[in-house]
């Protein structure tokens, strides 16, 4: 498992360039351009189970969902950041992608530290030290746990 660490104010143009937003919509179209203007090694190197670390205001900017859809599709287990921008936060729930909002864990992490995640308990352990992070309210957790908003919505409509 690899940790991809970035700084504050990582915006959605860095996560997925605006020039592709109306030509790339599916996971397969999105994957090659993920983080293209932030880290050219990411798209080819990311593997299922990897974690992305960021600072404050992660995912600010455009409402485009290629970043959350793409990061979920390549198997990123979670994004760990000091704070998230609100549309990105919402979009992650909609894609069934786990966000860990935990400034202390981000501050504690240095390159090479071992990190383990326990989403059910709401804890993240960095170099042996455990930090708790806020869990989603139950009604919102249900959306993420259903695999995202569309599977959840379909189940609701079937009721």
């Amino acid at each position: 498992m690899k940790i991809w660490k970035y700084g504050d104010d990582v915006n959605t143009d860095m996560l997925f360039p605006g020039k592709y937003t109306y030509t790339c919509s599916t996971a397969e179209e999105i994957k090659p351009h993920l983080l293209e203007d932030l880290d050219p090694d990411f798209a080819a190197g990311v593997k299922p189970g990897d974690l992305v670390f960021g600072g404050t205001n992660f995912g600010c900017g455009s409402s485009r969902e290629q970043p959350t859809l793409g990061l979920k599709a390549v198997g990123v287990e979670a994004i760990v950041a000091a704070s998230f921008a609100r549309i990105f936060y919402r979009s992650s729930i909609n894609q069934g992608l786990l966000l860990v909002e935990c400034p202390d864990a981000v501050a504690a992490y240095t390159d090479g530290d071992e990190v383990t995640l326990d989403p059910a308990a709401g804890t993240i352990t960095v170099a042996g030290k455990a930090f708790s992070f806020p869990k989603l309210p139950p009604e919102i957790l249900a959306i993420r746990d259903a695999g995202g908003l569309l599977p959840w919505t379909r189940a609701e409509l079937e009721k």
Partner: protein
Amino acid sequence: MGMTFAEKILARKAGLDQTVPGQIVIIEPDHLLTHDNTAAIVGKITDDLERFGVARRSMPVIALDHVVPAASEKHAVNHQTARSFAERFDLPNFYDVGTGVCHQVLMEKGHALPGRVIVGSDSHTCSYGALGVFSTGVDRTEAAALYLRGKTWLRVPETIRITLSGKLQSPVSAKDLVLTIIGDIGAAGAAYRAVEFHGAVDTLTIEERFTIANMGVEMGAKIAVFPVDAVTREYLSSIGIQDSAYEALWADGDAAYGRELTYDLGAIEPVVAAPHKVDNRKSVAELEGTKIQQVLLGTCTNGRLSDLDAAARILDGRTVSPTVRLLVLPASREIYQQAMENGTLATLSKAGGTILPPGCGPCLGAHQGCLAPGEKCLSTANRNFKGRMGCTEAEIYLASPETAAATAIHGTISDPRREVSR
């Protein structure tokens, strides 16, 4: 204890007596905005739409604006898909290529009315706070789910109260005010929060309020909202909306705020957001002399008639520097026509400007006006992120229409106050 605007409007929409920050409410938005991304949205739910239909036909508003006229076959197919969707489900609020930038269209066509809750799959949906609307951005997946089910959840935000006093001293503008606020509180300074404007808001036109609300998301806000007053009612009346067509509401006098800020409008000076963050605010004086190769005047942030007029007043009888490309992007066809009829477009064209069709293209590097490596653009848009205008090795500076006009003349970042006093 009284309620803030956000607490009150979400309580009303959710059918509750009151709400508190942090509470989750389920609401049926009055409108859902989508644009060129309509194609990708309906592509997610093609079979579901045939089975379940569109929850409420009056809810969707579609305006094609991001890559218009279509730049390629793929973009043309996107537009075609959106058109077919509107036709298949007999959606009454569809605006085709050329009508304008979606946010301007929602306002001009009377969809953004006080007291309404509007969500949109575009981050600048927060613009309608100018008219006392609770409006905010969501992603494409949420828009798809809304087509099917017609409702969603919202977290009741904490609120920041910003109290204004005094009056802006032209050619200092609303853009300078909002860039100043963002520079002070930072790009995440209002994250998850609502921002209410109080005090001397009556000195600001609806167009100025729109510019400020539009950039709410650039400080991380969920909404940025103004009270409904005589200025609002006059604007709405001018587009044929009577007072009885909406039910405005506003914060109680004893509402509780998480943070309070005050600004003296008379003390605001021309500022620029330097690359690559919107909160990287500098005074124009600090950047004067910086060479600029392209000036973009317009967009949903500053593409209204008063913005184009303000630039034209400075450019009247002058010539754009031979080292600058001046692009003019009116926010809508209506504005384009008004600027044509009052001579503003002629002035801007004679000065050396290139008039583009109403749309979003250059702002996000999707269509027209892309930059080359090493170039610098001064833009009246809302974002200066690296790569935003199609090139990661270019730089974007954000400023007012007045500063844009002065900069276009000299080819370097310039203080508009000197041009006015000439």
